[in-house]
C-alpha cells in the first residue's frame, strides 16, 4: 500500500525537521519526504492541511490490564484508546495477574497484541519472580520473548542485596532496569503527599524522602554495577535535583514523569476527589514546577501517560480505599502540549512537546520508533494543535473513565493515527 500525506506541517524532532512537507509511505515505511519517489502513485491520500504530522507517540507506561484484570480494561479497549490518543508504541509494566515473570506469558501478550494489528506493544518483564523482590526472573528468556526491560512496577525490593544482584545480572547482558524510586517502608500505607494538605484532610502521607532515599540507593548501586537504570515517574523537586546531579556525574540513567504530575498538585484532591489519587502522589506546587523545569532542561527525558484504567467499583470509594491511577492514553498529547505551552519558549514549543513523547521516549526504551527518517517505520500521529476539546467520560475510548482532568478543556486533538503505513484511526 502506498500512502501520501499532503500539506501537513511535518515536525520530526529527531531529524530536526519542522516544515510543510508531504510524506510518502510505501510498504509500511517512510519512502520519501518532500518530493515523491520515482513512480509513486498513492493508493490513498490524507490531506493534512493545517495539521501537524508527527511521529507516532511512544508511551512509556501503559497498563493494559491483561492478563488478569479484564474487568478493568482489555487489550482491545486500551489499544483502541492508544490509537485515539495517537500512541503507536507503548511500554506496559509487568504488574498483571499473573505477573509477567515467565516467557510464555510474555509471548502470549505479544502475540495477542500483534494479532490485533494495532499499536506496537512492548512489555517490561518482572525483575523478580512474582514481583516479590526475592528471586530473579529468567531475564534472557524474557528478552527473547519480547521484553524490552525489567521492572518492579509498584512493588519495592526490601532486600538491597537482591536489588544489587538484579542490577549486576541485568548489566551482564546489557538490559535496562526500570525502577520507580520508592523506599519500601517510608510512606507505606500513605495515600497523599506528606504536607499541610494531607495533615489537614487527615490523609496518611508519603514523604518526599521516600523518593530521594530510594534514588540515593539506586545511584550508589548504579555506581557499583554500571547497570543502566530508567527511573519511572519522578514526583518531587528534590528527586529531580538528585537525578540532575547524577546525570551530570555521568551515571547511565534516564527518567520519565507521568503527565498528571506536570499539571496537578495535592491541592487538586480538593474535597477528597479520588480521581486525584495517584501513585506516586501529586505533590506541592514547588515540586510540580521543578518537574516542569526538569522536563524542559532534559533532566527528565520523557513524559508518559501512566495510563491506569480503574473501574467505578474501585474508584467510587472513600479516598483511602479507592484504587490509585487515572486513564491517560488519550490525554497524553494534549497534556504534553500544555506543558510546552507553559514551560517552553514559543518557537520550540511544538517540537519540544513532540520530542518528549516520541524520540526521547523511544531512545530511553531502546525502541525502533519515534522518528520519521526515510526508511523508518511509518508510524504517525497527525493532529490539530489548535482544537479545544472537553475531557468527559463519553469522549474517551478507554474502558477507564476516571481522570482528574474530567471537565477540563484541553488543546490539541488527534485526527489520524497511522501504524506501519496503515491508517488505523481517524476522527
Amino acid at each position: 500500500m502506498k500512502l501520501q500525506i499532503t500539506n501537513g506541517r511535518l515536525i520530526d524532532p529527531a531529524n530536526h525537521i519542522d516544515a510543510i512537507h508531504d510524506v510518502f509511505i510505501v510498504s509500511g515505511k517512510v519512502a520519501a519526504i518532500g518530493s515523491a519517489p520515482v513512480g509513486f502513485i498513492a493508493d490513498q491520500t490524507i490531506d493534512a492541511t493545517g495539521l501537524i504530522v508527527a511521529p507516532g507517540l511512544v508511551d512509556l507506561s501503559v497498563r493494559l490490564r491483561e492478563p488478569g484484570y479484564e474487568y478493568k480494561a482489555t487489550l482491545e479497549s486500551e489499544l483502541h484508546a492508544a490509537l485515539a490518543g495517537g500512541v503507536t508504541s507503548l511500554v506496559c509494566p509487568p504488574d498483571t495477574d499473573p505477573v509477567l515473570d515467565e516467557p510464555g506469558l510474555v509471548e502470549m501478550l505479544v502475540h495477542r497484541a500483534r494479532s490485533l494489528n494495532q499499536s506496537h506493544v512492548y512489555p517490561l518483564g518482572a525483575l523478580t519472580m512474582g514481583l516479590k523482590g526475592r528471586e530473579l526472573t529468567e531475564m534472557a528468556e524474557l528478552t527473547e520473548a519480547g521484553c524490552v526491560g525489567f521492572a518492579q512496577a509498584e512493588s519495592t525490593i526490601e532486600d538491597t542485596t537482591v536489588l544489587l544482584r538484579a542490577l549486576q545480572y541485568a548489566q551482564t547482558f546489557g538490559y535496562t532496569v526500570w525502577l520507580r524510586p520508592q523506599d519500601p517502608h517510608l510512606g507505606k500505607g500513605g495515600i497523599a503527599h506528606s504536607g499541610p494538605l494531607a495533615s489537614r484532610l487527615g490523609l496518611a502521607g508519603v514523604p518526599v524522602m521516600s523518593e530521594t532515599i530510594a534514588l540515593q540507593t539506586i545511584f550508589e548501586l548504579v555506581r557499583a554495577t554500571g547497570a543502566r537504570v530508567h527511573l519511572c515517574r519522578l514526583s518531587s523537586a528534590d528527586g529531580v535535583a538528585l537525578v540532575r546531579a547524577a546525570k551530570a556525574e555521568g551515571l547511565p540513567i534516564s527518567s520519565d514523569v507521568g503527565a498528571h504530575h506536570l499539571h496537578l498538585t495535592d491541592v487538586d484532591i480538593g474535597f477528597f476527589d479520588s480521581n486525584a489519587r495517584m501513585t506516586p502522589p501529586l505533590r506541592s506546587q514547588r515540586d510540580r514546577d521543578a518537574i516542569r523545569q526538569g522536563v524542559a532542561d532534559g533532566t527528565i527525558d520523557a513524559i508518559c501517560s501512566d495510563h491506569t484504567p480503574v473501574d467505578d467499583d474501585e474508584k467510587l470509594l472513600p479516598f483511602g480505599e479507592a484504587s490509585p491511577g487515572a486513564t491517560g492514553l488519550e490525554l497524553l498529547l494534549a497534556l504534553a502540549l500544555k506543558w510546552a505551552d507553559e514551560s517552553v519558549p514559543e518557537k520550540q514549543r511544538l517540537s519540544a512537546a513532540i520530542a518528549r513523547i516520541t524520540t526521547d521516549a523511544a531512545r530511553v526504551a531502546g525502541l525502533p520508533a519515534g522518528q520519521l527518517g526515510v526508511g523508518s517505520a511509518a508510524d504517525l500521529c497527525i493532529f490539530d494543535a489548535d482544537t479545544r476539546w472537553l475531557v468527559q467520560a463519553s469522549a474517551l475510548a478507554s474502558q477507564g473513565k476516571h481522570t482528574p482532568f474530567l471537565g477540563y478543556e484541553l488543546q490539541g486533538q488527534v485526527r489520524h493515527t497511522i501504524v506501519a503505513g496503515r491508517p488505523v484511526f481517524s476522527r
Partner: protein
Amino acid sequence: MHNPQLNKHGELQHLLTIEGLPRAVVTRILDTASSFVGVGDRDVKKVPLMRGKSVFNLFFENSTRTRTTFEIASKRLSADVINLNISASSASKGESLLDTIDNLAAMHADMFVVRHAQSGAPYLIAKHLIDTHQPHVHVVNAGDGRHAHPTQGLLDMYTIRHYKKDFSNLTVAVVGDILHSRVARSDIHGLTTLGVPEVRAIGPRTLLPTGLEQMGVRVFTDMNEGLKGVDVIIMLRLQNERMSGALLPSAQEYFKSYGLTPERLALAKPDAIVMHPGPMNRGVEIDSAVADGAQAVILPQVTFGIAVRMAVMSMLAGS
C-alpha cells in the same frame, strides 16, 4: 471546587467539617444549642422539631458513646432513629458504601449520621446525594478517619463559650496525639474560626503532623512550656495501639512527658478548664486527680454534646 456542605444559598446542607464554615453559622449552631440545653432537665425531654423524620445512624466503625449521644439527640427531637452497625452487616457481604446509601435513601431516610474509618467518607456520601439529586437528605459527619469530628468540635466550642464567654482573649492548648486525632483538627478549626488568638498544639514530634503550623497553631514539644498561662486545656485520648510500632516507647514514658498532672495544671491560668473528648485513659494522658478535680469540665461536655447535636440536626432538617 464546590464545597459540598453548603447549598447554593450558603446555608448548611450537610455538616462534614468545621473548616470553612462561616463564623456566623458556627455561632448560630452554638446559640441554637443553648436553647436545647434545658430540654434534658424537663419532665418530658422532647421537642417535636423532627417528628416524622427518620435518622439513620450509619456506623462503619464501632462507637458506643458517639452513637448513643446522636441517638438521644434524635429522640429528644422526636425523630425516628435507626441504628445500623454496618461493619457487621452489608460491608462484610461486599456491598459498596454507595449501594448501602442508595438502599437506605430508598427507605426515605431524612438524615445519615456517618462514622467511618476513612477520612473523607462522608464527603463521598454527600457528593453522591448531590449527584443523584436528593437535596432533602442530609449527612452529619460523626467522625471520619483522622479528618474531622465536627459535632465534637462544636460541643467543645460550646463548652469553652459556656465557661469563658469570650473567645477573643483566650489561649487554648490541645495536647497529645494530634497526628491521628480528628477531634484535634475539628477543635483547631473551631477555635481559629471563632477568633481565638492563640491555639497551641503540644505533643512529641512523632504525634504531630507535618505542616501543622499552617493550620494556624503554635507547636510545642515541651508540655511545661506549652501549658504556661493557658485558659483551656483540651486533652486527647491516646489509643493503645499507638504504643506498638515506633511512635512511642511506652505509656509510662508518655505520661511522664505529656500526662496532665496537678503540677502541670498549675502552670496554666488558675481558672483554666480541662477538657477531654473521652473515653479517658487515666494514668496515660491524664491523672485521676485532674480528671476528677474542680477544673475538669469533662462531664458537662457530654451534656452539652446532646444539645449541640440536637442543634445541628434540627438546623439541617429545617434547611
